[in-house]
Protein backbone atom coordinates (compact mmCIF):
# COMPACT_ATOMS: atom_id res chain seq x y z
CA UNK A 1 0.00 0.00 0.00
CA UNK A 2 3.02 2.33 0.23
CA UNK A 3 3.44 5.20 -2.20
CA UNK A 4 -0.18 5.42 -3.16
CA UNK A 5 0.12 9.17 -2.98
CA UNK A 6 2.91 10.85 -4.89
CA UNK A 7 2.75 14.41 -3.71
CA UNK A 8 4.56 17.33 -5.30
CA UNK A 9 4.74 20.48 -3.19
CA UNK A 10 5.03 24.05 -4.51
CA UNK A 11 6.62 26.78 -2.38
CA UNK A 12 7.91 30.30 -2.95
CA UNK A 13 11.47 31.34 -2.17
CA UNK A 14 10.60 32.33 1.39
CA UNK A 15 8.90 29.14 2.52
CA UNK A 16 11.27 27.17 0.30
CA UNK A 17 14.03 28.50 2.59
CA UNK A 18 15.95 30.31 -0.14
CA UNK A 19 15.50 33.85 1.19
CA UNK A 20 13.22 36.84 1.50
CA UNK A 21 12.21 39.57 -0.92
CA UNK A 22 15.83 39.92 -2.09
CA UNK A 23 15.48 36.43 -3.58
CA UNK A 24 12.14 37.16 -5.30
CA UNK A 25 13.80 36.64 -8.70
CA UNK A 26 15.11 33.21 -7.69
CA UNK A 27 14.53 30.90 -10.69
CA UNK A 28 12.37 27.84 -10.44
CA UNK A 29 14.12 24.76 -9.03
CA UNK A 30 13.10 21.21 -8.21
CA UNK A 31 14.31 19.50 -5.05
CA UNK A 32 13.74 15.88 -4.10
CA UNK A 33 11.72 15.24 -0.96
CA UNK A 34 10.06 17.79 1.28
CA UNK A 35 11.22 21.28 2.23
CA UNK A 36 9.99 23.43 5.15
CA UNK A 37 6.23 23.02 5.66
CA UNK A 38 6.40 19.93 3.41
CA UNK A 39 7.48 18.01 6.52
CA UNK A 40 3.87 18.25 7.74
CA UNK A 41 2.65 16.72 4.47
CA UNK A 42 5.21 13.94 4.80
CA UNK A 43 4.11 13.14 8.35
CA UNK A 44 0.41 13.30 7.49
CA UNK A 45 0.89 10.85 4.62
CA UNK A 46 2.72 8.31 6.76
CA UNK A 47 2.76 4.98 4.95
CA UNK A 48 0.14 6.11 2.45
CA UNK A 49 2.61 7.94 0.27
CA UNK A 50 5.38 10.47 0.18
CA UNK A 51 6.45 13.90 -0.96
CA UNK A 52 8.24 13.07 -4.18
CA UNK A 53 9.65 16.53 -4.52
CA UNK A 54 9.32 20.25 -4.02
CA UNK A 55 9.25 23.01 -6.60
CA UNK A 56 10.54 26.35 -5.35
CA UNK A 57 10.26 29.58 -7.30
CA UNK A 58 10.87 33.24 -6.53
CA UNK A 59 7.62 35.25 -6.38
CA UNK A 60 8.73 37.66 -9.10
CA UNK A 61 10.29 34.95 -11.23
CA UNK A 62 6.98 33.12 -11.45
CA UNK A 63 4.72 36.05 -12.21
CA UNK A 64 7.17 37.69 -14.63
CA UNK A 65 8.01 34.48 -16.51
CA UNK A 66 4.76 32.60 -16.10
CA UNK A 67 4.82 30.77 -19.44
CA UNK A 68 8.41 29.66 -18.95
CA UNK A 69 7.78 28.72 -15.30
CA UNK A 70 4.80 26.58 -16.30
CA UNK A 71 6.91 24.86 -18.98
CA UNK A 72 9.52 24.09 -16.34
CA UNK A 73 6.79 22.77 -14.08
CA UNK A 74 5.40 20.63 -16.89
CA UNK A 75 8.80 19.03 -17.36
CA UNK A 76 8.92 18.17 -13.64
CA UNK A 77 5.36 16.79 -13.69
CA UNK A 78 6.15 14.60 -16.70
CA UNK A 79 9.33 13.30 -15.11
CA UNK A 80 8.24 12.87 -11.47
CA UNK A 81 4.65 11.83 -12.23
CA UNK A 82 2.97 13.01 -9.02
CA UNK A 83 -0.72 12.28 -8.55
CA UNK A 84 -1.28 15.14 -6.12
CA UNK A 85 -0.01 18.72 -6.18
CA UNK A 86 -0.13 20.77 -2.98
CA UNK A 87 0.68 24.48 -3.29
CA UNK A 88 1.43 26.85 -0.43
CA UNK A 89 -0.10 27.89 1.94
CA UNK A 90 0.38 31.35 0.48
CA UNK A 91 -1.46 33.27 3.27
CA UNK A 92 -2.15 36.86 2.15
CA UNK A 93 0.80 37.08 -0.28
CA UNK A 94 -0.59 38.15 -3.66
CA UNK A 95 2.13 36.99 -6.04
CA UNK A 96 2.56 33.72 -4.13
CA UNK A 97 -1.19 33.11 -4.07
CA UNK A 98 -1.51 33.70 -7.80
CA UNK A 99 1.45 31.37 -8.47
CA UNK A 100 -0.07 28.63 -6.28
CA UNK A 101 -3.37 28.99 -8.16
CA UNK A 102 -1.61 28.88 -11.54
CA UNK A 103 0.40 25.80 -10.58
CA UNK A 104 -2.75 24.01 -9.37
CA UNK A 105 -4.77 24.92 -12.44
CA UNK A 106 -1.95 23.72 -14.67
CA UNK A 107 -1.71 20.42 -12.77
CA UNK A 108 -5.48 19.96 -13.02
CA UNK A 109 -5.28 20.55 -16.77
CA UNK A 110 -2.82 17.67 -16.92
CA UNK A 111 -5.24 15.46 -14.98
CA UNK A 112 -3.41 15.73 -11.65
CA UNK A 113 -5.37 16.48 -8.47
CA UNK A 114 -4.40 19.75 -6.84
CA UNK A 115 -5.15 21.57 -3.60
CA UNK A 116 -3.89 24.93 -2.41
CA UNK A 117 -4.30 27.25 0.54
CA UNK A 118 -4.25 31.02 1.02
CA UNK A 119 -6.25 33.68 2.79
CA UNK A 120 -9.78 34.14 1.48
CA UNK A 121 -9.06 37.64 0.13
CA UNK A 122 -5.87 36.66 -1.72
CA UNK A 123 -5.96 37.69 -5.42
CA UNK A 124 -5.43 33.99 -6.20
CA UNK A 125 -8.90 33.30 -4.78
CA UNK A 126 -10.45 36.25 -6.55
CA UNK A 127 -8.94 35.17 -9.91
CA UNK A 128 -9.16 31.39 -9.71
CA UNK A 129 -11.45 30.58 -6.76
CA UNK A 130 -14.12 28.99 -8.91
CA UNK A 131 -11.73 26.53 -10.52
CA UNK A 132 -9.80 25.25 -7.53
CA UNK A 133 -9.98 23.65 -4.12
CA UNK A 134 -8.57 26.41 -1.92
CA UNK A 135 -8.42 26.04 1.86
CA UNK A 136 -8.56 29.38 3.64
CA UNK A 137 -5.82 30.18 6.14
CA UNK A 138 -5.24 33.15 8.41
CA UNK A 139 -1.83 33.06 9.98
CA UNK A 140 1.35 31.00 9.86
CA UNK A 141 0.38 29.31 13.13
CA UNK A 142 -2.49 27.54 11.31
CA UNK A 143 -0.10 25.94 8.80
CA UNK A 144 -0.07 22.49 10.40
CA UNK A 145 -3.84 21.97 10.92
CA UNK A 146 -4.58 23.46 7.48
CA UNK A 147 -2.08 21.23 5.68
CA UNK A 148 -3.47 18.23 7.54
CA UNK A 149 -6.99 19.09 6.40
CA UNK A 150 -5.73 19.61 2.84
CA UNK A 151 -3.97 16.25 2.85
CA UNK A 152 -6.98 14.39 4.20
CA UNK A 153 -8.98 15.98 1.40
CA UNK A 154 -6.25 15.58 -1.25
CA UNK A 155 -5.89 11.87 -0.50
CA UNK A 156 -9.59 11.37 -1.20
CA UNK A 157 -9.25 13.37 -4.43
CA UNK A 158 -6.54 10.97 -5.61
CA UNK A 159 -7.97 7.72 -4.28
CA UNK A 160 -11.54 8.47 -5.29
CA UNK A 161 -13.20 8.95 -1.91
CA UNK A 162 -16.30 11.07 -1.36
CA UNK A 163 -15.81 14.81 -1.72
CA UNK A 164 -18.17 16.84 0.43
CA UNK A 165 -19.48 20.35 0.07
CA UNK A 166 -17.32 23.38 0.71
CA UNK A 167 -18.60 24.05 4.22
CA UNK A 168 -18.25 20.42 5.26
CA UNK A 169 -14.74 20.01 3.88
CA UNK A 170 -13.51 23.47 4.73
CA UNK A 171 -12.46 24.66 1.25
CA UNK A 172 -13.69 27.97 -0.13
CA UNK A 173 -17.02 27.75 -1.98
CA UNK A 174 -16.52 27.46 -5.73
CA UNK A 175 -19.96 28.76 -6.62
CA UNK A 176 -21.22 25.30 -7.57
CA UNK A 177 -24.71 24.32 -6.43
CA UNK A 178 -25.03 20.65 -5.55
CA UNK A 179 -28.57 19.33 -5.16
CA UNK A 180 -29.19 17.76 -1.78
CA UNK A 181 -31.95 16.85 0.60
CA UNK A 182 -32.67 18.99 3.66
CA UNK A 183 -34.14 17.57 6.88
CA UNK A 184 -37.12 19.93 6.82
CA UNK A 185 -39.26 21.26 4.00
CA UNK A 186 -38.66 24.76 2.67
CA UNK A 187 -41.53 26.63 4.31
CA UNK A 188 -40.61 25.26 7.73
CA UNK A 189 -36.95 26.24 7.29
CA UNK A 190 -38.01 29.72 6.18
CA UNK A 191 -40.36 30.21 9.14
CA UNK A 192 -37.71 28.90 11.56
CA UNK A 193 -35.26 31.38 10.11
CA UNK A 194 -37.75 34.22 10.43
CA UNK A 195 -38.51 33.33 14.06
CA UNK A 196 -34.78 33.30 14.83
CA UNK A 197 -34.36 36.62 13.11
CA UNK A 198 -37.25 38.19 15.08
CA UNK A 199 -35.80 36.86 18.33
CA UNK A 200 -32.45 38.34 17.44
CA UNK A 201 -30.84 34.89 17.36
CA UNK A 202 -28.20 33.94 14.82
CA UNK A 203 -29.34 32.09 11.71
CA UNK A 204 -27.77 31.06 8.46
CA UNK A 205 -29.25 32.05 5.13
CA UNK A 206 -29.51 29.38 2.45
CA UNK A 207 -29.06 31.93 -0.31
CA UNK A 208 -26.00 33.99 0.54
CA UNK A 209 -25.83 37.25 -1.36
CA UNK A 210 -22.53 37.87 -3.10
CA UNK A 211 -21.65 41.49 -2.45
CA UNK A 212 -19.88 43.47 -5.13
CA UNK A 213 -16.20 44.28 -4.63
CA UNK A 214 -15.25 47.56 -3.05
CA UNK A 215 -13.37 49.44 -5.73
CA UNK A 216 -10.91 52.16 -4.75
CA UNK A 217 -11.98 55.43 -6.38
CA UNK A 218 -9.86 56.45 -9.33
CA UNK A 219 -7.74 59.55 -8.89
CA UNK A 220 -9.23 62.83 -10.03
CA UNK A 221 -8.46 63.92 -13.58
CA UNK A 222 -6.17 66.94 -13.47
CA UNK A 223 -7.20 68.60 -16.69
CA UNK A 224 -10.45 67.54 -18.32
CA UNK A 225 -9.62 69.52 -21.45
CA UNK A 226 -6.79 67.08 -22.15
CA UNK A 227 -8.53 63.92 -20.96
CA UNK A 228 -9.74 61.03 -23.11
CA UNK A 229 -13.24 60.01 -22.03
CA UNK A 230 -15.05 56.76 -22.83
CA UNK A 231 -18.80 56.17 -22.81
CA UNK A 232 -20.30 53.05 -21.27
CA UNK A 233 -23.92 52.20 -20.69
CA UNK A 234 -25.84 49.51 -18.86
CA UNK A 235 -29.06 50.86 -20.42
CA UNK A 236 -28.84 48.40 -23.32
CA UNK A 237 -27.88 50.47 -26.37
CA UNK A 238 -28.01 48.39 -29.56
CA UNK A 239 -27.59 49.25 -33.23
CA UNK A 240 -31.01 49.06 -34.90
CA UNK A 241 -32.12 45.46 -35.35
CA UNK A 242 -29.66 44.17 -32.75
CA UNK A 243 -27.25 42.60 -35.26
CA UNK A 244 -25.06 40.84 -32.70
CA UNK A 245 -27.84 39.51 -30.51
CA UNK A 246 -27.38 41.54 -27.34
CA UNK A 247 -29.60 40.21 -24.53
CA UNK A 248 -32.02 42.46 -22.67
CA UNK A 249 -31.30 40.88 -19.27
CA UNK A 250 -28.83 38.54 -17.49
CA UNK A 251 -25.85 39.80 -19.50
CA UNK A 252 -22.72 37.65 -19.58
CA UNK A 253 -20.72 39.85 -21.93
CA UNK A 254 -20.39 43.41 -23.10
CA UNK A 255 -20.77 44.71 -26.66
CA UNK A 256 -18.51 47.25 -28.36
CA UNK A 257 -19.78 49.59 -31.06
CA UNK A 258 -17.80 52.13 -33.04
CA UNK A 259 -18.90 55.74 -32.69
CA UNK A 260 -15.88 56.98 -34.58
CA UNK A 261 -16.60 60.15 -36.57
CA UNK A 262 -20.18 60.43 -35.31
CA UNK A 263 -21.43 63.73 -33.89
CA UNK A 264 -24.42 62.11 -32.18
CA UNK A 265 -26.36 58.87 -31.96
CA UNK A 266 -28.94 59.21 -34.71
CA UNK A 267 -32.39 57.98 -33.80
CA UNK A 268 -33.44 55.32 -36.27
CA UNK A 269 -29.93 53.87 -36.29
CA UNK A 270 -29.86 52.89 -32.61
CA UNK A 271 -32.33 51.43 -30.14
CA UNK A 272 -32.59 50.74 -26.44
CA UNK A 273 -33.05 47.06 -25.56
CA UNK A 274 -33.42 46.50 -21.83
CA UNK A 275 -36.06 44.49 -20.01
CA UNK A 276 -35.98 46.72 -16.92
CA UNK A 277 -37.53 49.94 -18.26
CA UNK A 278 -39.79 51.30 -20.98
CA UNK A 279 -37.36 51.68 -23.90
CA UNK A 280 -39.30 53.75 -26.46
CA UNK A 281 -38.11 57.12 -25.17
CA UNK A 282 -34.44 56.17 -25.38
CA UNK A 283 -34.98 54.50 -28.75
CA UNK A 284 -36.34 57.83 -30.03
CA UNK A 285 -33.46 59.72 -28.45
CA UNK A 286 -30.49 57.36 -27.92
CA UNK A 287 -28.34 60.28 -26.67
CA UNK A 288 -30.40 60.01 -23.46
CA UNK A 289 -28.55 56.81 -22.60
CA UNK A 290 -25.21 57.41 -24.35
CA UNK A 291 -24.50 61.15 -24.40
CA UNK A 292 -22.51 61.28 -27.61
CA UNK A 293 -24.06 64.52 -28.91
CA UNK A 294 -23.46 66.25 -25.59
CA UNK A 295 -19.87 65.12 -25.14
CA UNK A 296 -18.98 65.86 -28.78
CA UNK A 297 -20.23 69.41 -28.26
CA UNK A 298 -18.10 69.73 -25.13
CA UNK A 299 -15.16 68.32 -27.09
CA UNK A 300 -15.63 70.97 -29.79
CA UNK A 301 -15.56 73.62 -27.03
CA UNK A 302 -12.28 72.14 -25.73
CA UNK A 303 -13.91 71.27 -22.42
CA UNK A 304 -13.02 67.61 -22.99
CA UNK A 305 -9.82 66.36 -24.62
CA UNK A 306 -11.24 63.56 -26.75
CA UNK A 307 -13.89 60.87 -26.88
CA UNK A 308 -12.85 57.21 -27.07
CA UNK A 309 -14.21 55.98 -30.44
CA UNK A 310 -15.86 52.85 -29.00
CA UNK A 311 -18.95 52.68 -26.83
CA UNK A 312 -19.46 49.70 -24.53
CA UNK A 313 -22.99 48.51 -23.89
CA UNK A 314 -25.07 45.91 -22.15
CA UNK A 315 -28.43 45.67 -20.40
CA UNK A 316 -27.70 45.60 -16.68
CA UNK A 317 -30.78 43.71 -15.53
CA UNK A 318 -30.53 40.70 -13.21
CA UNK A 319 -26.79 40.63 -13.74
CA UNK A 320 -24.97 38.12 -11.57
CA UNK A 321 -22.16 39.72 -9.58
CA UNK A 322 -19.65 37.14 -10.79
CA UNK A 323 -20.51 37.94 -14.43
CA UNK A 324 -20.44 41.66 -13.71
CA UNK A 325 -16.92 41.40 -12.32
CA UNK A 326 -15.75 39.59 -15.48
CA UNK A 327 -17.53 42.08 -17.75
CA UNK A 328 -16.10 45.05 -15.84
CA UNK A 329 -12.64 43.60 -16.01
CA UNK A 330 -12.97 43.05 -19.75
CA UNK A 331 -14.06 46.62 -20.40
CA UNK A 332 -11.37 48.00 -18.07
CA UNK A 333 -8.71 46.07 -19.99
CA UNK A 334 -9.81 47.69 -23.26
CA UNK A 335 -9.92 51.14 -21.65
CA UNK A 336 -6.40 50.73 -20.28
CA UNK A 337 -5.11 49.59 -23.66
CA UNK A 338 -6.62 52.71 -25.25
CA UNK A 339 -5.17 55.05 -22.55
CA UNK A 340 -8.62 56.28 -21.54
CA UNK A 341 -8.49 58.72 -18.59
CA UNK A 342 -12.09 58.74 -17.49
CA UNK A 343 -15.49 57.16 -18.12
CA UNK A 344 -19.06 58.34 -18.18
CA UNK A 345 -21.25 55.38 -17.33
CA UNK A 346 -24.98 55.75 -17.77
CA UNK A 347 -27.18 53.34 -15.86
CA UNK A 348 -30.96 53.40 -15.69
Amino acid at each position, binding site marked *: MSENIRCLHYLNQFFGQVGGEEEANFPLVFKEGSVGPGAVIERTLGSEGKVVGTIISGDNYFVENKDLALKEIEAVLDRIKPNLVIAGPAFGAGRYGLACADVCRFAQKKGISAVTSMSADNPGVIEHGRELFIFPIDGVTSTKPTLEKMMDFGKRLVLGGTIGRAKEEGYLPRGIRVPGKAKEVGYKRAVDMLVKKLRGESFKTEIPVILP*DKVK*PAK*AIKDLSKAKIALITTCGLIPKGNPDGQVSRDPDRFHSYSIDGMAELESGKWEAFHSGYFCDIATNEPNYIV*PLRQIKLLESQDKVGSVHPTVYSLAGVNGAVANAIEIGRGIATELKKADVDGVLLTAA
Partner: protein
Amino acid sequence: MISAIYGLALGVGANRIIKGAKIEHVLGDPKMGSEKDRAYSLNLVRIALKTLEQEVTEPTLYDPYEFLKTEKKEVSDAA
Protein backbone atom coordinates in the same frame (compact mmCIF):
# COMPACT_ATOMS: atom_id res chain seq x y z
CA MET B 1 -21.75 57.22 -13.20
CA ILE B 2 -25.07 58.83 -14.03
CA SER B 3 -28.13 57.03 -12.74
CA ALA B 4 -31.72 57.78 -11.85
CA ILE B 5 -31.62 54.91 -9.33
CA TYR B 6 -28.68 56.53 -7.56
CA GLY B 7 -29.53 54.92 -4.20
CA LEU B 8 -28.72 51.55 -5.71
CA ALA B 9 -25.48 52.89 -7.18
CA LEU B 10 -24.49 54.20 -3.74
CA GLY B 11 -25.42 50.90 -2.14
CA VAL B 12 -23.19 48.82 -4.39
CA GLY B 13 -20.32 51.27 -4.03
CA ALA B 14 -20.00 53.25 -7.28
CA ASN B 15 -17.59 56.04 -6.48
CA ARG B 16 -18.80 59.15 -8.33
CA ILE B 17 -22.57 59.18 -8.85
CA ILE B 18 -24.62 61.92 -10.48
CA LYS B 19 -28.37 61.98 -10.07
CA GLY B 20 -29.92 61.33 -13.47
CA ALA B 21 -33.33 62.58 -14.63
CA LYS B 22 -35.56 59.49 -14.93
CA ILE B 23 -35.05 55.80 -15.41
CA GLU B 24 -36.47 55.95 -18.95
CA HIS B 25 -34.44 59.04 -19.91
CA VAL B 26 -31.43 59.32 -17.64
CA LEU B 27 -29.87 62.26 -19.45
CA GLY B 28 -32.73 64.57 -20.28
CA ASP B 29 -36.45 65.17 -20.22
CA PRO B 30 -38.57 65.05 -23.39
CA LYS B 31 -41.31 67.06 -21.62
CA MET B 32 -39.09 70.15 -21.56
CA GLY B 33 -39.20 70.65 -25.29
CA SER B 34 -36.22 70.18 -27.54
CA GLU B 35 -34.23 73.35 -26.85
CA LYS B 36 -34.46 73.35 -23.05
CA ASP B 37 -34.02 69.61 -22.97
CA ARG B 38 -30.77 69.78 -24.92
CA ALA B 39 -29.40 72.49 -22.65
CA TYR B 40 -30.40 70.49 -19.57
CA SER B 41 -28.87 67.32 -20.94
CA LEU B 42 -25.64 69.10 -21.88
CA ASN B 43 -25.40 70.50 -18.37
CA LEU B 44 -25.90 67.07 -16.82
CA VAL B 45 -23.08 65.64 -18.92
CA ARG B 46 -20.84 68.64 -18.25
CA ILE B 47 -21.38 68.31 -14.49
CA ALA B 48 -20.82 64.55 -14.63
CA LEU B 49 -17.49 65.17 -16.34
CA LYS B 50 -16.64 67.85 -13.75
CA THR B 51 -17.00 65.29 -10.94
CA LEU B 52 -14.14 63.35 -12.55
CA GLU B 53 -11.94 66.30 -11.57
CA GLN B 54 -12.91 65.89 -7.93
CA GLU B 55 -10.90 63.73 -5.57
CA VAL B 56 -13.16 61.27 -3.70
CA THR B 57 -12.35 58.65 -1.08
CA GLU B 58 -15.68 56.84 -0.92
CA PRO B 59 -18.96 56.51 -2.85
CA THR B 60 -20.08 60.10 -3.37
CA LEU B 61 -23.42 61.32 -4.68
CA TYR B 62 -23.67 64.59 -6.61
CA ASP B 63 -26.91 66.46 -7.12
CA PRO B 64 -26.62 68.41 -10.38
CA TYR B 65 -28.74 71.31 -9.01
CA GLU B 66 -26.56 71.65 -5.92
CA PHE B 67 -23.50 71.47 -8.14
CA LEU B 68 -24.84 74.28 -10.34
CA LYS B 69 -25.61 76.43 -7.29
CA THR B 70 -22.06 76.03 -5.99
CA GLU B 71 -20.67 76.85 -9.42
CA LYS B 72 -22.79 80.01 -9.66
CA LYS B 73 -21.75 81.03 -6.16
CA GLU B 74 -18.09 80.56 -7.06
CA VAL B 75 -18.54 82.72 -10.14
CA SER B 76 -20.32 85.50 -8.23
CA ASP B 77 -17.75 85.31 -5.41
CA ALA B 78 -14.97 85.69 -7.95
CA ALA B 79 -16.77 88.69 -9.45
